[in-house]
């Protein structure tokens, strides 16, 4: 693959996927002017999205792409390895990045000081680089480096929030994120001493012949808990609500749409294509632990969401609950479960991004996201709030929306396992979702508008389009499941058949 005679751009897509936003970020920092930097960041992020789309198409057509970075053949050099799972995650992250970037200009102008805007976009692109890097690399340590690239830039993105609590949230996230990343790197270190390799595929091949002994278990432990911190698995979720709530709107949307999803990707990579589900799920009680934590998240975090009076916090706690759905799918470790998890990664990214973008538009107009300030704002910004309502319905899992598709497959997976109790947990969690979403919609559409809401109106077109587009996509992917379910199903088959 590497050192192909004659430089062909197509061969280097995997490298470009990361290099383009990385170089883009550096140039962005040099531009210094907010609007210029935005234009540049938009070009870069759209380009990145285009590359990921090409990669996705290529992987679907021709199978896994392996790319030896710098011409060093794996497993000695760092390998960029794009299989269907990677391509799927790359697609989600890069498109989320591009769509949010369209939206970003007005919102950033409103929320970030003029002098810092270019830096903001720079950090945004760096974060994008890191997230894409985690998804594309086939090297465990390289994934750690990218994790830190994305995290450090994300801390900065959060700290730029206007409220001083953004600083504290960022600090807390930094502490927790670093602990998580360090746990991860400890796990990688143990794996490295055990197998002498850092390449996921290589490690997997070497692990096959080994007994599951204590070091291997310690490695799984550290990797799982480390990544769980990053993906905000209950009870390690507590950094998330404040980070979401006090970050600038664009950051929140980006964080919600991508960061936890990539962490989940990494967990799947470790569980299924490195150790193999036989080791993780049959020797260890991973299923029990994950199911318990997922269920706690689905119920507990949803209940918390019901009582929050800040819309962003409601949605943040809902995210914790939704991550529970995904980890539940993973915990089932069967075909349907993984399919539902992957589908929900996609669908949740879609609807949460739509919701947070809409909330960002509200913040732009009235400067508050407190629930009682949103009373009766629906008729004042009808298009935004209609989109919000659509995405909200999807969050509940209303049939005809993307959220239903995920829940349908999750329920099917649970039934497939014969765990009836969990069906009721899913139902109960959905019911609680009805309350917290219903509470928002009730205030937004049925209350008499307050003083702040009176002067609200729909945001400028550049913000409106991404919101409306995403919420329509929520409907689209509730009906047309070819991209989501079929691909997810293929990935699940691949993951479950991955390690022999």
């Amino acid at each position, binding site marked *: 693959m590497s050192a192909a005679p004659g430089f062909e751009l197509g061969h280097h897509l995997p490298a470009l996927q990361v290099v383009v936003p990385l170089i883009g970020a550096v140039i962005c920092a040099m531009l210094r002017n907010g609007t210029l930097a935005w234009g540049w960041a938009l070009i870069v992020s759209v380009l990145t999205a285009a590359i990921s789309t090409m990669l996705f198409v290529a992987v679907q057509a021709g199978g896994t792409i392996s790319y030896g970075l710098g011409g060093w053949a794996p497993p000695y050099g760092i390998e960029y390895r794009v299989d269907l799972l990677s391509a799927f995650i790359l697609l989600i992250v890069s498109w989320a990045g591009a769509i949010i970037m369209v939206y970003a200009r007005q919102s950033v102008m409103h929320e970030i000081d003029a002098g810092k805007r270019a830096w903001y976009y720079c950090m945004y692109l760096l974060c994008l680089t890191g997230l894409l890097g985690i998804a594309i690399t086939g090297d465990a340590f390289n994934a750690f480096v990218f994790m830190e690239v994305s995290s450090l830039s994300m801390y900065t993105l959060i700290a730029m929030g206007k409220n001083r609590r953004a600083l504290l949230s960022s600090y*807390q996230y930094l502490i*927790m994120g670093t*602990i*998580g990343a360090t*746990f991860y790197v400890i796990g990688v270190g143990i794996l490295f001493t055990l197998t002498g390799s850092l390449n996921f595929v290589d490690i997997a091949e070497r692990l096959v012949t080994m007994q*599951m*002994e*204590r070091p291997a*278990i*310690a490695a*799984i*432990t*550290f990797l*799982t*808990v480390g990544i*769980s911190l990053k993906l905000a698995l209950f*009870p*390690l979720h*507590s*950094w998330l*609500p*404040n980070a979401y709530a006090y970050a600038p709107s664009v950051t929140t949307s980006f964080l919600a749409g991508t960061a936890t999803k990539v962490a989940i990707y990494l967990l799947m990579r470790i569980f299924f294509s490195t150790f193999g589900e036989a080791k993780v799920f049959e*020797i*260890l*009680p991973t299923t029990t*632990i994950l199911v318990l934590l997922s269920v706690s998240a689905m119920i*507990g*975090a949803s*209940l*918390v969401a*019901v*009582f*929050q*009076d800040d819309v962003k916090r409601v949605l943040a706690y809902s995210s914790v609950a939704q991550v529970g759905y995904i980890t539940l799918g993973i915990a089932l470790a069967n075909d349907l479960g993984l399919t539902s998890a992957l589908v929900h990664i996609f669908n949740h990214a879609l609807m949460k991004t739509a919701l947070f973008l809409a909330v960002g538009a509200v913040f732009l107009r009235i400067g508050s996201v407190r629930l009682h300030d949103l009373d009766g704002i629906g*008729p004042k910004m*009808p*298009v935004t709030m*209609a989109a919000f309502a659509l995405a909200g*319905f999807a969050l509940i899992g*209303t*049939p*005809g929306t993307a959220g*239903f598709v995920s829940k*349908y497959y999750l*329920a*099917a997976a649970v*039934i497939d396992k014969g765990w009836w109790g969990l*069906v009721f947990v899913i*139902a*109960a969690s959905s*019911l609680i979702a*009805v*309350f917290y979403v219903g*509470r928002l919609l*009730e*205030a937004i*559409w*049925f209350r008499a508008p307050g003083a702040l809401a009176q002067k609200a109106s729909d945001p400028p077109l550049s913000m409106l389009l991404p919101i409306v587009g995403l919420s329509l996509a929520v409907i689209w992917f509730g*009906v*047309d499941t070819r991209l989501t379910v079929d691909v997810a199903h293929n990935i699940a088959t691949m993951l479950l058949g991955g390690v022999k």
Partner: protein
Amino acid sequence: MTAIDVNPGLLMIAAGLLACLLPRVGRQLLTLGTPVAGLLLLIATPMGALTTLPIFGYDLTLLRLDGLAFPFGIIFLIAAFLNAIFALHQDDRLQDSAVMIYGGAAVGAVLAGDLASLFIYWELTAVSSVFLILASRTERAYSAAMRYLVWQIGSGVLLLAGILLHYQETGSMAFTTITLGSVGSWAIFLAFGIKCAFPLLHNWVQDAYPEATITGTVALSAFTTKLAVYAFARSFAGEELLIPIGVVMTCFPVFFAVIENDLRRVLAFSLNNQLGFMLVGIGIGSEIAINGAVSHAFAHIIYKSLLFMSMGAVLYRTGTVKASELGGLYKSMPLTTIFCIIGALSIAGFPLTSGFVTKNLTLTGAEYAGYFWIWLLLIFASAGVMEHSGIKIPFFAFFSHDGGHRVKEAPVNMLIAMGIAAGACIFIGIFPQTLYSILPYEVTKSPYSVQSVVTKTQLLTFSIIAFGVLIRAGLYPKEIPSTNLNTDWLYRHVGRYFVGVLAYMARWAWAGVCGGWRATLGAAHGLIRRHYGPDGAMGSAWPTGQMAFWATVMIAAYSLIGFWYLL
């Protein structure tokens, strides 16, 4: 898929979504035009049309038109049209949109050929209809709407579970005859039963319908329960269990209706009672009985809408539908009075009205099948209908003692809607063949034999005479403003202390949101809020140390468990 084979329900839903973006005039055109377009589309669709779409790994049957689906589709669209006229006076984006989606979902469900689509429409009717209750925008309505939603979503969840089980057992997703026996079939049966307001599962009807808006109640009365009747006719025709259930449903509401003060709630009880007739017909399952159930549903939608419309008009003008506060309105609202009486005569089943020609089929079905006690109880219930809907509604609203309301006649659009409905009641009564011709099976006999006309008239007339005797003797119970307990007492009162289930949490949470703190001082709510509220351990911001502590706990626990397993 030819151009014509589109499910008119989807058309309605699409129009409903569009409506929420349009200004008033556009919405009015849509609400009036779409049902008409849907009707034309449905009539133009050839009988036996079948459209399937491969999706989700199996074939969804988007459209299946047969003799059973056709009359339901027609009447739902007519009901949507009537409701649109009736609602013309109001400017409410939310309701215009919700009603269309609601009606569209009902039509869609009737024309859906597989259980998966049915489920989707089933839930859509629940979610869209709740807005008609919420749109009252009172705290009472919020609570009622939430209780309503819990029931409806419960039915949906049950249906989903049933469908999945049924699929596992039979490998079929077809929405067709299901034999009771397996767990899946029972779950489906119960899910239908909730929506059809089975005895003990009925109370959401009386709880929620009277709290809906003036126009919303009309729509609610038309779609949800009749959709369930259709589902039963489709899947459980001839299931004998439905006969006793239906009989109980016809009988018990009449007693509650006698003492109920809220006239819209009286109508809700009467709705229950009418559903019982239909279920008995479906349970008997013979051709004539199924015809009876279907035609009864058809006629019922019209006259029940008419009655709810007339009460809606009264509510609109006077601001109340409490029997104790009304009376004497015939002077101020003469046309509404006449329409209401026509509706009342129809529901009671007087000859020359639609109720007579349809209820007769069910009764004949029972006669032919030789179910004596069933027949007798149906006759008894007919007298009951006469009591609460035939006499009580018009008498206490429009006659009785003068309630002192000096109001204008109902708005023109309401009068037109009521006029059309009243005309339809009489038209079907005089020309029953028009309705009979679209029923699933052929009807050979005319309902107008001397015997049936005379006996039914005797029955009803002597009911009225009994009313006269009682009221002249002062024995008729007075209308008293009151709350009458029903099964909802179980979950609204007793359960508050004994069964800490989600339904209450919902109510409390919602009541809390609406500022009704008095109602929220419940133990469970307090408990949950204490732990999950903004100041609770789960909901408050954690210090960094605490977060790190949990990370450490997780690592320790996970390692210990891992090593434990290896030992």
